[in-house]
């Protein structure tokens, strides 16, 4: 694969109440919820973000509640890839199940908001700084779920 995108960078321990605060979970659709994505951290994020931009963060991205709406609003906005030093466990499963590619990369401090990166199967190249970083790809089992576009399609084929 080859996927290029502009980076939006966040810090460590970004919890699901920052990705989508509880009070918006009662909104009737993910489209309406997505207008509030990342609101506590960046109130105008949903306006500034363009589909295909890549989210990058430090350690433990997506910690906190099990709300699938957190990765769902990001997917709704057009997030295909999230790069972080590590992911919280439930967020990890939820994002994979929605077909979002997750990359665990040790050097996310070398990636900043506004950088452009190119992602291949095992490398992230920061085109802005011209540095390349390796990562360990997802296991085939998980890659397969992402490739199918998420768990629902995966299960449908497995009946």
């Amino acid at each position, binding site marked *: 694969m080859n996927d290029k995108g502009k980076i939006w960078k966040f810090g460590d321990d970004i919890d699901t109440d920052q990705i989508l605060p509880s009070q918006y979970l009662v909104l009737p659709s993910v489209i309406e919820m997505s207008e509030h994505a990342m609101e506590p951290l960046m109130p105008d994020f949903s306006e500034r973000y363009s589909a295909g931009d890549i989210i990058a963060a430090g350690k433990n991205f997506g910690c906190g509640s099990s709300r699938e709406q957190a990765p769902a609003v990001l997917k709704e906005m057009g997030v295909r890839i999230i790069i972080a030093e590590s992911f919280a*466990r439930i967020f990890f499963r*939820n994002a994979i199940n*929605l077909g979002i590619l997750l990359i665990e990369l040790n050097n996310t401090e070398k990636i900043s908001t506004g950088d452009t990166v190119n992602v291949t199967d095992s490398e992230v190249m920061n085109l802005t700084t011209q540095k390349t970083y390796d990562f360990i790809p997802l296991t085939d*089992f998980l890659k397969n779920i992402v490739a199918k576009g998420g768990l629902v399609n995966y299960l449908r084929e497995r009946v």
Partner: protein
Amino acid sequence: MGMTITEKIIAAHAKKGHVQPGEIVDVDVDGVFVHDVFGPAVIDEFKRQNRAIWDSSKITMVIDHELPAVSENAGAGYQKMVEFSKASNIKHFYYGEGVCHQVIPEKGRVKPGELFIGADSHTVTYGALTAFSTGIGTKEMAGICGTGRIWLKVPETIKFVINGELPDGVFSKDLILYIIGKMKADGCVYKAVEYSGTAIEKLSMDARFTLANMTVEMGAKNAMIGFDHTTKTWVEKRGIKEYTVYANDPDAKFEEVHTLEAKEVVPQTAGPAGVDDVKAIERVRGTNIHQVFVGSCTNGRLEDLEIAAKIIKGRKIADYIKLIITPASKSIYLQAIERGLIRTFIDAGALVSGPGCGLCYGVHGGVLGKGEIAVCTNNRNFSGRLGHRDAKVYLASPATAVASAIEGKIADPRRYLRG
């Protein structure tokens, strides 16, 4: 090679003689639950899959977060869960019975040795019953409702051995905050976390649920506490007679073992900057506060209310301070009434609300305004979690919370518990 309790439960449910950390296995699930925040989404996803329901007797629905309905959407969501449950013959439907993580064990919906999955991160709580339990999202929950199965990666186990006995005025909440402070919010991501040692053996089931509940705040996949006489008495009192007991093999492998002396632990608070912003009471004592909340699946149990009542009996909360007490379940509420605890709270100036999640979900039950500072017994203090993003929340034990309400500032509960 020997296995840990967590590995044994996963192996049994994968119908395998042996599993090892890192292995991905497909497992049979013994039970699941869904609450009102995610129920409507699970139902939509389930219908999209076009499958028959796996086993309606193994599915539990709990209305606890947005109860009584906090909005028209919440009301419509309940109705959707009611209609789905009627049509699918789901009999275990609990409205107003209390917080899911108290109601599920209380009603005997989870047993020792089981593999139980919930659409909520604090599902780790049932590790206190020597069950494997963890949280997942809505799509996967809909998947289990149609198949009865899920894939799991076998986690490595990190073990904490806590020896001795917690000092007076120090509770399992202080212990878990102390551990989270050391390990940090990502210290146990993807791991099983087991608690053992003489200090754990002395804990009541109520105290063990608190410990297991907050294990997810270190990123853990599940919590585990070994089965003993306390566990046995608790489950059998609830009519559970048939269950499987798993214990660690003598040569079970633990990724890390941390040992600590219970006597080293003092009352702790976590906050305001995250669950791992943990400080000993000396460092925050005297901080002015506006509100105190006692409740939630972490600390709204009978023992918690008894401790709170013991401290506040015959006293009044400070002027202009709000003390909100939310029992974790209807059964706890009734027992608290019978024991006179509710009267004690009301006499002291507290507002006692009906059972449920209350403030912990952050949309009702005492939502914090901009700049407000609160001491709360629940499990999360993320920015915006309990109201305005500029409100500050210090997590603490019920004893510390109530002592703080009396003084109007963060207080050390130990002076109220001597003698």
